[in-house]
């Protein structure tokens, strides 16, 4: 092989190209100028200039989540890197594959408190899956290829490459990805067959089964979702998805019980509580899902399939742990099921479904139908009707609107729901929608937002305008940090400390100031027109939907309570005040 000599900056671009990268989300600065110079002198990779480095990472997350590819970020040293930290942490908690290149001061200045120096690898060590500081230009190509391998394999996550400026200028040897293999990092993806056989047996013998699946199924690729759907239909069992897992199973299907957890449906949570066999696939028994741990699904045998061994037995002891990729597990399980054609207990299953239907008949997501104000749930139901059948991607901010979006919007396919689950990052939705729109130029990308959250990355409207991205920001404007207000109402004696937004911008004018289109609905009668116009306008739109200020999000399992202590609506109070231990929970 003849050696290729390039500068560090050229090596970066070449390695990205060889990794199949088409787009970088970034923001320039002194410590990455050589790379920006290299970007200028090529056409293969597109650079999207965001307006804040946090948004660069969220945009890359939206891109990654909606395509299954690795999202790529480029930021400068010091403030560029520290601004990216929230995004990296978000990607870590939601297992999103990201490679983030950060500029660094030249090697000889590291440790001198140089201008725009910060200890990037030190700061990002706990919020990345792995990170590198490049000290030798001849290692650069290997490190970039390795970073992609680490970011996308096993449980995906963010990887930072810190690149001193002198390394970007230095000449070095380029090696292609085919010559790079990580010394040790080879996560187990193929599950142990004997265990899968045991799982099939347990599943087949169940009398009150439930599939409880999470973001791991989405991360495993669209085929995993298809296989899950096959397995669930083959068994006739009920299935629930976590917030991160929505879309893995078609939401409109009868066997789907909706989302589970703190704001999950009554039927999903009670089925989890009362099941005798729980099949957890790519879900991680997060505290938002389990509620009070010692009362979590007390009578069930639990099977847990996860690619990350550290997710297994972390908070909930399971009976059958299976380490492996969800797709590989599902494929094997289906094959074994078809081979053995196990006979399931049809009577028990019918009785279980009767019970579930009883729970379902409570219609836990119902809300007051009125013309007086726009109920946020109604706004989402109308949105649902308008996007039905369209090629739509939905992102959200964080708060009540996020939970309502999860409850009311129809997710029939994976990779179309982009939300910040683990970290709960306000400000995620708009940049994520931008990332999705870059990947799917002709799709309908909507950020379901709250008026407080949207202000955390509103500057990204400029990005949307610059690249003519017709993203839609659908604000459920209740003038409150609604989720904070709800907790204060229910748990803090209605003392509404600092949760009301005394001063809000005029979102219509704000949209216009950015060069976009602003719309507003204050009455139910205006809603359909506004949604229709929003969807039909081929430009960035902010739709300010002025909704009921006092609406709360139900069902709700208050902190420290069990699944069967779920509150259905405002008429149900917390009864005995929440126990102190529950209050301290977030």
């Amino acid at each position, binding site marked *: 092989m003849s050696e290729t000599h390039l500068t560090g900056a050229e090596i970066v671009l070449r390695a990205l190209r060889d990794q199949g990268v088409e787009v970088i989300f970034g923001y320039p600065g002194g410590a990455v100028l050589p790379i920006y110079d290299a970007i200028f002198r090529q056409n293969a990779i597109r650079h999207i200039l965001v307006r804040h480095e946090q948004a660069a990472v969220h945009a890359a997350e939206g891109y990654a989540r909606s395509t299954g590819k690795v999202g790529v970020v480029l930021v400068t040293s010091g403030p560029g890197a520290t601004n990216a930290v929230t995004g990296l942490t978000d990607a870590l908690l939601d297992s999103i594959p990201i490679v983030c290149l950060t500029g660094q001061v030249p090697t000889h200045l590291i440790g001198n408190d140089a201008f725009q120096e910060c200890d990037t*690898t*030190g700061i990002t*060590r*706990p919020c990345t*899956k*792995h*990170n590198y*500081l490049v000290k030798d230009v001849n290692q650069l190509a290997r490190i970039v290829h390795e970073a992609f391998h*680490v970011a996308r394999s096993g449980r995906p996550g963010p990887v930072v490459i810190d690149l001193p400026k002198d390394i970007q200028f230095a000449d070095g040897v380029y090696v292609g990805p085919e010559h790079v293999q*990580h*010394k*040790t*990092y080879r996560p187990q993806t193929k599950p142990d067959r004997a265990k899968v056989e045991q799982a099939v047996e347990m599943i087949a013998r169940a009398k009150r089964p439930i599939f409880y699946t999470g973001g791991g199924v989405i991360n495993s690729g669209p085929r995993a979702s298809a296989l899950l759907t096959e397995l669930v239909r083959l068994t006739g069992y009920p299935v629930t998805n976590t917030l991160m897992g929505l879309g893995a199973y078609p939401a409109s299907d009868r066997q789907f019980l909706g989302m589970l957890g703190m704001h999950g449906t009554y039927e999903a949570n009670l089925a989890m509580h009362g099941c005798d066999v729980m099949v957890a696939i790519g879900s991680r028994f997060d505290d938002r899902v389990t509620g009070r741990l010692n009362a979590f699904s007390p009578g069930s045998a639990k099977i847990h399939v996860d690619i*990350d*061994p*550290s997710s*297994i*037995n*972390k908070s909930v*002891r399971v009976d059958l742990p299976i380490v492996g990729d969800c797709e590989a597990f599902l494929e094997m399980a289906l094959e074994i099921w078809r081979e053995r054609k196990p006979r399931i207990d049809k009577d028990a299953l019918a009785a279980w479904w009767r019970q579930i239907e009883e729970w379902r008949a409570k219609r836990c997501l119902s809300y007051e139908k009125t013309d007086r104000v726009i109920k946020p749930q109604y706004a989402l139901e109308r949105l649902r009707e308008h996007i039905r059948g369209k090629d739509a991607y939905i992102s959200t901010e964080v708060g009540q609107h996020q939970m309502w979006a999860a409850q009311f919007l129809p997710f029939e396919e994976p990779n179309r729901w982009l939300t910040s689950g683990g970290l709960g990052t306000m400000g995620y939705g708009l940049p994520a929608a931008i990332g999705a729109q870059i990947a799917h130029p002709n799709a309908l990308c909507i950020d379901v937002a709250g008026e407080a959250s949207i202000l955390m990355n509103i500057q990204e409207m400029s990005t949307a305008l610059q690249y003519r991205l017709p993203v839609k920001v659908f604000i459920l404007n209740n003038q409150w940090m609604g989720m904070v207000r709800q907790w204060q109402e229910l748990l803090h004696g209605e003392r509404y400390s600092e949760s009301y937004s005394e001063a809000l911008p005029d979102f219509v004018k704000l949209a216009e100031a950015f060069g976009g289109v602003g719309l507003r609905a204050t009455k139910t009668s205006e809603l359909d027109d506004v949604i229709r116009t929003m969807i039909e306008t081929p430009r960035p739109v902010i739709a300010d939907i002025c909704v009921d200020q006092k609406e709360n999000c139900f069902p709700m399992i208050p902190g420290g309570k069990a699944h069967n202590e779920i509150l259905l609506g405002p008429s149900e109070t917390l009864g005995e005040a929440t126990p102190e231990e529950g209050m301290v929970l977030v």
Partner: protein
Amino acid sequence: MDTTIERHTIAVLVDNEPGVLARVIGLFSGRGYNIESLTVAEVERDRGLSRITIVTSGTPMIIEQIKAQLSRLVPVHKVRDLTEEGPHIERELALVKVAGMGDKRIEALRIADIFKAVVLDATLSSFVFELTGTSDDLDRFIELMRQLGLVELSRTGAVAMSRGSEGL
């Protein structure tokens, strides 16, 4: 759930690269695990491998988590729970400085002899002892020296290895 606190000695083989120790320590502090002792040194120069020995304590579930979390770090090659895997040997080294005159000085020397400690330095009013043994041996020796004029103490933390012919 089993809530008994167990003490485990874990051997970890890692790439000897910058930041790897920070990663391991950060994992323990970030997740609130205990470190009773931690030692590290390069063990294979050509392959660039270091071995970390960690003595930690926690419930069985926490110990399991610690091992899973360690295994998940990218530069980690192997994680072995020596306590769980069977008989193993643990050794620690201590340097113990004792100062005093008269009877106490003689007594310190006598006890050091019983423990087979080595005198590394002596002045008319002090000794520096070197003692190798299990951490418990060291604890007992140090406790006695406290009463005999202990002025300074330095311990390595435990290193450990399984018995028998198998390698890590």
